[in-house]
């Protein structure tokens, strides 16, 4: 992991319950198209099932239709519904609120107030992202090995 983003890397670890059996679905909530698509591509390449939303509202809608994700990668600054609002919204749902969230943001300090399992600072390196994800999810590739 690069030190420049490790300076903002705090992952308190995903609870075993969030990782029941083999869970490989990930929700990516990110308004920047390029970052979102690249993440999707990278995670897919790594063997996960990725679902992507461009803002908090889309994210909430996706949650109702997708399999329960083992992790949500969440951006903070988004239109329509931002990261803080998203966390608050799923906080009302007893089920959704247990899903681990890792915030990926350019403003790590603003994330301190969020009830999240971890914070990654943009630009995060691929290896860091994959490492964090693997702590919470089982990839289909892992399942094979």
């Amino acid at each position, binding site marked *: 992991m*690069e030190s420049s983003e490790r*300076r903002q890397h705090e992952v308190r670890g995903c609870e075993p319950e969030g990782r029941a059996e083999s869970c490989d679905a990930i929700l990516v909530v990110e308004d920047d198209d390029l970052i979102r698509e690249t993440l999707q591509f990278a995670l897919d390449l790594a063997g996960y099932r990725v679902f992507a939303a461009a803002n908090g509202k889309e994210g909430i809608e996706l949650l109702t239709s997708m399999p329960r994700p083992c992790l949500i990668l969440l951006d903070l600054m988004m239109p329509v519904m931002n990261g803080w609002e998203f966390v608050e919204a799923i906080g009302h749902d007893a089920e959704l609120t247990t899903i681990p969230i890792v915030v990926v943001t350019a403003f790590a300090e603003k994330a301190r107030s969020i009830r999240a399992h971890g914070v990654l600072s943009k*630009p995060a*390196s691929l290896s860091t992202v994959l490492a964090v994800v693997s702590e919470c999810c089982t990839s289909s590739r892992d399942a094979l090995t």
Partner: protein
Amino acid sequence: MTDAVPFALFTSVLDAISDGVMVVDEAGTITHFNHQFVRMWSIPDAILATRSERRVLDHMAQQQASSKTPEPRTLGSLDVASEVVIELMNASIIECRVRSCRIRDEVMGRIWTFADITERWTEEEENRRSRQLLALHVQQTPLAVIRWGLDFTVREWNPAAERIFGYPASEAIGRHASFIVPEHARSQVQGVWEGLLAHRSGHRSSNDNVTAAGETIHCEWYNTPLVDASDAVVGVASLVEDITARRRLEHEREVLLEREHEARVDAEELVQVRDDFIAVASHELRTPLSALKLQLELIPQILGPTAFPGKERFEALVRRSLRQLERFVGLVNELLDISRARDASIVLERKGVNLSRLVASVIEQHRSESQAAGCIVTADLVDAVDGQWDPIRLEQVVVNLFINAIKYGAGKPIEIEVRSDPDTAWLVVRDHGIGVRPEDRERIFERFGRAVPVTHYRGLGLGLYITHQIVRAHGGRIVLDSEPGQGSTFTIELPRRVATTEASVQPTVSLHP
């Protein structure tokens, strides 16, 4: 009535009066005189016996010290019906008069009278002197001196009054005060006047006045009622100071102060705007960088393990691109830090941090850079150097010092030490590079302070400033020991726990010779 009775009466009268008297007939023979005369002039009996006016006058002339009358006269040269004031040797002042004596149109002789006016004269002298002194003051003083009659008209008007109000005395005298009081101040001035007449108040007042040119000025008035012997007010004396200029200066000063304050507020706002902009810009820059970085990192994954011609070279290029990206990200981070660090207080999130482990990890992270620069790194890290510090910020400090050592000490060894005592931890980073000149020692810790030309060394000049801020926020200090051409040793001293009076710690850069 016989001649004898009136004559006796006459002599009694002569002796009763206080003046000295000498009566002389036409021929110059003394016919009558009184005791006071003899005593006043100390006339010896011998001379008296001669009954000669001439002899007596000569004697009197000898007593004379000076003449007080405008044209100096001697007694002997007195005309009939004239008077002179002379001072005697014994300091008495005598008023001498001579009148011709007529009886039924016939000139019978002369009557000399002498009055001792010493007391009166001295008093008058003193009065005269006081009046002169007063007149001098009144003429010379920069304050206007105005005397008012009971009808509030001008009785006296000095040169300063002429200057201040613009009216010569000839025009001012006799005029009612309202000629120098503008309409809006009249009732106030009237109130002051009435207070003065009633002895109650008004001794000092401040009001607008108006000059002959129509200009409004502001004056400070010092007023004194003038009273006669029975304590009744007979007029008022005023001293007046024109304070228009002073007030204007004070007003200007206030305006200047306010403008300076506004300018300062504007400047601070501008700085805030700039800092806000930097913060937003940094955020905006990080977004595309994020995508770029992920994509570059994906390339090896996409290429897969299979070899192909030029693969190694291509992968090396990708790695170099990634490093450039890292450098860019580093600059953006610095920019963002600088706008945050501007506020005096950096908020620390303290946790238990193992400094040795942190330093070891930083050295490891930057191994490729130190190797590329040809710096052999030796680390002497004592175990279990822990403390309550902000890990993210502390890592920034370590990285900054290490990167600087690599940058400015390229090709030379770098030594890093971590040691501690129960209360304090020390981090020492030593390089053998270009060193720091004495005159640059303080500058390099300032924002954008650099000691090297921008053409030779990269960087924004923010690293040491941020480092200093972080160390300071922890209650620690930085010590720089450096010799140009010999290298630099940076020692960071950190209290291991929060000081109970953190605010009182005044840490900064300490400069060793």
